């Protein structure tokens, strides 16, 4: 994976749970520019474990002087965000992958409607800067539980096409209302919890939106789960996947060579053939089709898990 060693220039709390980090090149070189919605993968050397988490870039896509991310501390997560919060300090060097965008604006759109839930605001922070610069019509709807938890309040510019929906102020999003009022040719982008994405998909379907005009990015780190074992067909070895580990991380820990990119089930790079499966693969990816998932002949090790008697994969 192509990556850069960058220095942490700033670390700042935006809310009790969300911290903003800024990375710069140690020799002040400028970094590749990117487009709104792009993410980077941050490598975290945590003792014997090398964690890698993907985070959306929230800095100005046209500013190569640094990259910024916002990290929400997930106390029930696998430990990456806790590491970022507790251990990473200005001056530290971290390995950061080059930006990749799997959630880009569709530039054919006549108008862009961005819908964010909670920490799902992050890809839109950079997209809003891009849309403003390009002077394209858009509106952003940002839902959060409370003002205290809404990290985006401090990251977004004060412009009239940004609407805040704060649950404890009783102005929750009315998806039906604002989706039914959009001009033809509008594209909708949703990032946040699965429930929000499903609600937008259902509302869109009800209103007759074309599927290709609805884009989404589940803001997802690999979900933890029960430990399981996997047999590697090429070596015959059996590896153990821990409760707070992904299959991809377990393969890396076992020094099995495997390609990867987004680590969030979206890019397809780590797709692995299943040789035999006695049990159920818990597919959490957005790469395989429903048919491919139910066939249980392929697995995306970055996010998917297994329950059952035995799983043999082609690695």
């Amino acid at each position: 994976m192509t990556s850069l060693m960058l220095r942490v220039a700033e670390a700042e709390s935006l809310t009790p749970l969300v911290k903003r980090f800024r990375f710069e090149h140690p020799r002040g070189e400028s970094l590749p520019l990117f487009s709104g919605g792009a993410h980077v993968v941050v490598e975290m050397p945590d003792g014997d474990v090398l964690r890698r988490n993907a985070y959306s870039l929230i800095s100005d896509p046209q500013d190569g002087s640094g990259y910024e991310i916002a990290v929400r501390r997930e106390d029930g997560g696998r430990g990456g965000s806790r590491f970022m919060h507790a251990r990473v300090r200005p001056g530290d060097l971290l390995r950061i992958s080059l930006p990749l965008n799997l959630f880009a604006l569709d530039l054919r759109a006549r108008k862009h409607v961005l819908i964010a839930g909670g920490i799902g605001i992050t890809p839109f922070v950079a997209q809003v800067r891009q849309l403003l610069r390009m002077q394209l019509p858009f509106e952003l709807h940002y839902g959060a539980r409370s003002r205290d938890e809404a990290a985006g309040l401090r990251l977004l510019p004060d412009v009239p096409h940004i609407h805040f929906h704060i649950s404890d102020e009783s102005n929750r999003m009315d998806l039906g209302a604002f989706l039914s009022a959009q001009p033809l040719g509008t594209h909708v982008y949703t990032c946040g919890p699965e429930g929000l994405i499903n609600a937008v998909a259902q509302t869109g379907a009800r209103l007759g939106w074309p599927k290709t005009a609805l884009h989404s990015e589940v803001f997802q780190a690999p979900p933890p789960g029960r430990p399981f074992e996997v047999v590697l067909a090429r070596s015959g070895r059996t590896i153990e996947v821990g409760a707070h580990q992904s299959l991809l991380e377990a393969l890396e820990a076992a020094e099995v060579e495997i390609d990867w990119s987004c680590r969030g089930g979206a890019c397809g790079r780590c797709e692995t053939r299943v040789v035999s499966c006695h049990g159920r693969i818990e597919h959490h990816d957005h790469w395989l089709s429903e048919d491919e998932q139910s066939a249980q002949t392929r697995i995306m090790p970055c996010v998917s898990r297994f329950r059952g008697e035995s799983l043999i994969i082609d690695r």
Partner: protein
Amino acid sequence: MTIRFNDETFRDDYSFRNSATAIRRFPFPFDKDDYMYSVNMEPHGTGGRAGSVFEKRFDVDEHYVAEMRDRAITLAGDPLRCQSLPHMELAGWDLLELIMQCKAEDYPDLFQLHRDGDRWHWINRPLGIEQRFTFLDPTTLPCGPMEYITRQAQGDFAVLDQRENNLWMDAGMVTSQADWSLDFDIGMNFFEWHAPVPKAAEMGIFQRALKFLLAIPQGAPSRRLNWTMTVNPRLDTSPENYHLWGPEKRTITPENVGAKQYLRVELQSFWRLPRSNALAFPIRCYLIALEDLVTVPKWARRLHRVIRDLPDELAEYKGFAVNRPIIIDYLAQFDDGKPTSPGIFPDD
């Protein structure tokens, strides 16, 4: 290094010639004695092998000025060789920036780019162009940004939009193509425009290649080589002009095959563009006459073996099946059966 630009043609009297230097640096595409499709990607960028066509990001060679002249002739006859769907203008600016920046950094004696915010000043010495313009303001250039810069860069350019987990041929400048048409392919997705390629789909090549391309990040371009054969050093072997070059295939004889039959190699590279998230796909064409190619003994031996053992469908698809026996007979005299060294470069 200063480059002496050839005064030569790629049509009519075909005065195109490769100098001894150009022959030595030709991107011979076969790293072993046989050939089959593969997703043969490798990193591209600065720091490629010195003197080779991989050394700079956008190789400029002795054919630059003549190739740009040939492009202008083709465009004058058929403006649809350059097309950009409306949503691709931003990608056009991205491509303009990429090419100007790379050329100015890699060939400072030939190209200069001065940027003062959005006010840019571009100097192209070989073509005698000096242009002041405002970046992202199309009214300050004589034509669209993609057309402007690709009239000054060797090779064809496809600019691919990325959406719905696919790539879309939504813009391009295509005047030196191996028998495909931008006007036909415009708006198609990756699987649609590759539909004519034999065997590869069933081999799963396209799925794997697409997956790789979709995940090309910023700042990490990749490349591969592709190849075919062309009679006469003609850049514009397009379907639109098949009536001009197709019949020339029938002019090959055992006496003239060395001089008239060319190996045509495409240096294809893949670049993520920053603002648009589009993928730039430059397809740079290099031509070499068989009689020049056989001056490198390793290449002569290997090309003979590759062409001799190539599956029939591929020779058919690449359009040289009709002359294959003559080509094989010609190359056979340079193949003494000795083993060849790995890799594509000459031995000495």
